């Protein structure tokens, strides 16, 4: 365990940027332009909290995670874990620190080796990190599997004997067996059945309390983000457009994209959903290049589409109230009746 005081940020991300270089397209004459997948993203996660990163596909959530964990090399920017600059570590030091920061992946079907028993899958990481001998590792694996609700009688079975929800529990057990402090949850329930999702969310929350974990929760489902996260950042085309505590963000969203996103979520309540106002955004999420000028949301924005300021100046992320930050020239202008 670390010596940092409670309440101090465990993870600090500063100006994280990832640009993918121009590529010559197959059979196409000209080269593509460099793609700015993550653009100066900064946030921090405090010990014991859940920080949510919300966005649609292509917004850069996965690239951001991978850049923070150095599964890919960021173009610029820093990620500090417990005060240590992850970018400054060599391969050995990085491997050593990775046991303290783990990832639970989205797909419980492809992320588990089909030839190994689930006990061995959970024990494998422990053995690699030299956490005791083989039998100790297997014992710890069995403990973790029980903690996530998988009875000992089936620990010798292979992944194909389990349902999606159970496999995701195995994925959670594998990540937590390393006694991490920080866990990245990359869409951990989106591949699961509706009736199973609540089970896994409850499990993750229980484990967080029992083990004092800090989560970075990457999610596209806003209702899940609202339920599960303490603070949330909304990502659009590689940069944070709004961030704040969950009550601020969900009850009083300021960025037109957040407002539109929330109004687009279908609600399982016909009385509410049929009479409320919806903003249907036109167009799709298009890529951003380093020479893109103005606000990146402008083309789809009901507020700034025809405004000169939005076309010329990219709005900086600025605090409005109590750490509620928004990157918009006209925050709060777009509202919907509830």
């Amino acid at each position: 365990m670390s010596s940092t005081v409670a309440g101090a940020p465990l993870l600090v991300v500063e100006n994280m940027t990832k640009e993918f270089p121009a590529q010559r397209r197959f059979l196409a004459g000209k080269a593509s332009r460099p793609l700015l997948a993550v653009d100066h993203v900064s946030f921090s996660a405090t010990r014991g909290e859940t920080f949510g990163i919300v966005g649609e596909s292509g917004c850069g959530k996965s690239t951001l995670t991978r850049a923070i964990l150095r599964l890919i090399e960021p173009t610029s920017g820093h990620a500090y874990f417990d005060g240590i600059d992850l970018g400054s570590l060599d391969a050995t030091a990085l491997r050593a620190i990775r046991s303290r920061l783990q990832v639970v992946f989205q797909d419980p079907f492809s992320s588990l080796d089909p030839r190994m028993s689930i006990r061995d899958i959970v024990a494998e990481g422990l053995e690699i990190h030299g956490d005791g001998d083989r039998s100790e590792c297997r014992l710890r694996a069995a403990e973790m599997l029980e903690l996530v609700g998988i009875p000992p009688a089936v620990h010798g079975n292979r992944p194909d004997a389990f349902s999606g929800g159970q496999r995701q529990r195995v994925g959670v057990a594998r990540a937590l067996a390393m006694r991490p402090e920080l866990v990245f949850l990359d869409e951990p329930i989106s591949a699961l059945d509706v009736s199973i999702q609540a089970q896994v969310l409850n499990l993750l929350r229980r484990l967080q309390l029992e083990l004092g974990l800090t989560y970075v929760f990457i999610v596209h489902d806003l209702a899940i983000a609202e339920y599960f996260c303490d603070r949330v950042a909304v990502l659009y085309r590689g940069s944070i457009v709004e961030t704040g505590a969950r009550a601020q963000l969900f009850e009083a969203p300021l960025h037109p994209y957040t407002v539109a996103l929330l109004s687009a979520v279908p609600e399982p309540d016909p009385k509410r959903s049929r009479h409320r106002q919806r903003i249907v955004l036109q167009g799709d999420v298009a890529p951003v290049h380093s020479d893109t000028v103005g606000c990146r949301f402008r083309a789809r924005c009901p507020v700034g589409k025809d405004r000169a300021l939005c076309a010329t100046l990219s709005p900086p992320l600025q605090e409005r109230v109590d750490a509620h930050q928004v990157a918009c020239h006209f925050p709060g202008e777009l509202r919907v009746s509830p």
Partner: protein
Amino acid sequence: MSALQPSNPVLVVASLQTEFRIARGKVQAVRDVSFTLEQGERLGIVGESGCGKSAMALSIMGLIEPPGFIVAGSVKLVGQELVGLPDRRLRKIRGREISLIYQDASAALDPVRSIGAHLLEAIRNHDATIGRAAARRRAVELLRDVEVPNAERRLNDYPHQYSGGMRQRVVIACALAHEPTVVIADEPTTALDVTTQAQVLTLLGRLVEERRTAVVLITHNLGIVAEFCDTVRVMYAGRFVEQASTETLFTTPRHPYTSALLGSVPRVKQLLTGPLPAIGGSPPDLASVGPGCAFAPRCLRSRGREICQTTAPAAPLRTDGHIVECHFADEDDAILADETQ
């Protein structure tokens, strides 16, 4: 919600049973399903993966292939029986009177053929006499109808040049090319982002409204049903366990599975805290469904009562066409009610 005329059924499915004969036995994917669809009705079928909803859709379309077989039942489309019809005849009906919109537009479109080629095929399939120029004009019209910008130019594009939402629009255009009476949409927006999903559902809603097309919308998303459908059927383990108008189902669900499902889904702007009222266990294996209620092992209302284990519940009709397949439909789930506050 539009008032439906209760006397103009376009699709009548009666006691449909479909099974898959595989090495380890018979998987009963659709177990005695019946329903009636009125002209212009929007019926939502809600269920989790593996509950039999896609097998049901394929059975209605006559697209079930071995090892899957329709073992009993009837599917009548505007009075005509489809079960047992030779494929040659079915092909004339599919795409013209009844169409299927698949979940995965990338799989439904051939990557080496242009968008125009797909639309032209959909048009010509049921209209051999249409000329080249007229077919092309119709294709552009269809593409405009699904709000693809620069339709004329984008006809020559290939599927990979379209975004996911645009591809799904093309699939919808193909399905509606001949203005069918019934469209079955199997998770049409599941692969899409929430803002794109809203666009596509709004579009689909407008198109079926204009054409008075009846829709069977298959989804696992309760929110989509609440927004899009007039009536709902909840499917569990190959059967409809509850059916009602959308309003009734969401305000007074009577089946323990429906209430549990509704209670376990977080919603926006509720700022819920504490654990979610989750449903324990997993959906049953349809290869070994016992004689009792298929939901009994996960049910909070059954509490181990014997009748739930031994006897499949009958479904007496309640008021307003509300049907609940539960022995204890009138009991409350006290525990669930508390936790969903």
